[in-house]
């Protein structure tokens, strides 16, 4: 079946099998490898992307379900060569080591800040509770999201 998904503002039209998972469509058909593919069971959360602005685990959604919808991946966070504050925050606060969970963590963090610009540490931990990081112990991820809260896009952000 032919489907069209708007990924990071660009329409991607492909002929896919209906059973194709969204994570594979993003990585293989759209060629965007920033979205990682992990546990395959909606536990680890590394494949988290946005569908219509809401975080979703893309291993547990068919690409066909996203036909006609808009998807945002980690590649869509940067605007005009300037990193989103959430990306800068992960750099400033060493919010990653191996980087496997990072794309999903940043998308969840950005979505949280869009709804709640000044979350508590507990609210951040709740928001990322569906995602697993085996490196950081989460402490620096919480700090990174707090950094982004303290340095919103209107302030000077160096890419």
């Amino acid at each position, binding site marked *: 079946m032919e489907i069209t998904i708007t990924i990071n503002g660009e329409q991607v039209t492909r002929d896919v099998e209906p*059973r*194709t998972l969204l994570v594979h469509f993003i990585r293989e058909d759209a060629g965007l490898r920033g979205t990682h593919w992990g546990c*395959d*069971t909606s536990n680890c959360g590394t494949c988290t992307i946005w569908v219509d602005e*809401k975080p979703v685990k893309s291993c*547990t959604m*068919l690409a066909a*379900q996203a036909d006609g919808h808009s998807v945002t991946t980690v590649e869509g966070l940067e605007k005009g060569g300037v990193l989103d504050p959430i990306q800068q925050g992960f750099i400033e606060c060493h919010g990653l080591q191996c980087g496997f969970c990072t794309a999903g963590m940043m998308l969840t963090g950005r979505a949280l800040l869009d709804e709640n610009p000044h979350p508590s540490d507990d609210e951040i931990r709740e928001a990322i509770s569906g995602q697993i990081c085996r490196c950081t112990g989460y402490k620096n991820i919480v700090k990174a999201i707090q950094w982004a809260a303290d340095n919103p896009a209107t302030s000077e952000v160096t890419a």
Partner: protein
Amino acid sequence: MQTPAAVDYVRATSVANAIALLNEHGEDARLLAGGHSLLPMMKLRLARPDILIDINDLDELRGIRVEGDELVLGAMVTHAEVLSSPILAEHYAIFREAEKVIADPIVRNKGTVGGSMCQADPSEDLSAVGAALKGSVVIQNATGTRTVPLREFHEGPYETKVADGEILTEVRFPIRPRAGSAYEKVERRVGDWPVCSAGAYVVVSGGVVTDVGIGLTAVGAEHFCAPEAEAFLIGKAPSEENLAAAAQLAADSCSPNADQRGPADYKQHLAMELTLRALRRAAASSQGA
């Protein structure tokens, strides 16, 4: 790599259209709601439909509203919407308390109320909430609709009264002024299925319990409820002694299985303790504490 077996996919344009598609394709068709139970089962070949009928476009299945003396949740209301609903929070704390511990925030964006009910997992938290509140579901087929009490909805694990060619369209809960409610869950880690959960509503009037509902999940409670414990409490003061006796009756009516989440006697103990905690807080809340 886990991928579902080859399957066809079609989007329903209305509830009537979904029912027509179900009748056209028979038992080889499955409705696709949030997909967070069905797709994992398809990956494992525990489910192998030939065609998926996607009902995500059906706005008629969305929305949370008050209708007369009932709360009405469309089948496609997501867990996230239940968690954040001011209407539900106004009437029953149990919704928010249960939803906060169902899966994780990202899964809650997709998983639906109707999907959870129809999946009918023996450890489903919402089934305990539905049984505690004595809710009902509306099931529609080509000839009309019928209402089934949630305490009669389950035929067994993963089996419900929803037959081929039918769709669950609504879940309804009676509004009970002055009811307090609460939900208690023990899980191994955030977002996991419960080792045991218990929920309750209590109405205390004139110093005695005049109405009560108790729901339990993951511990083999028949229809996720504990009617003997409820009957015991009616007309009695919500004292610690009476609540504890009721909680023990509830636990005695359970028959948990030993599994990787714990031995049976531990789960039975949890059933007592969590029921007691839920009753305690629900009773206090009904009395304005």
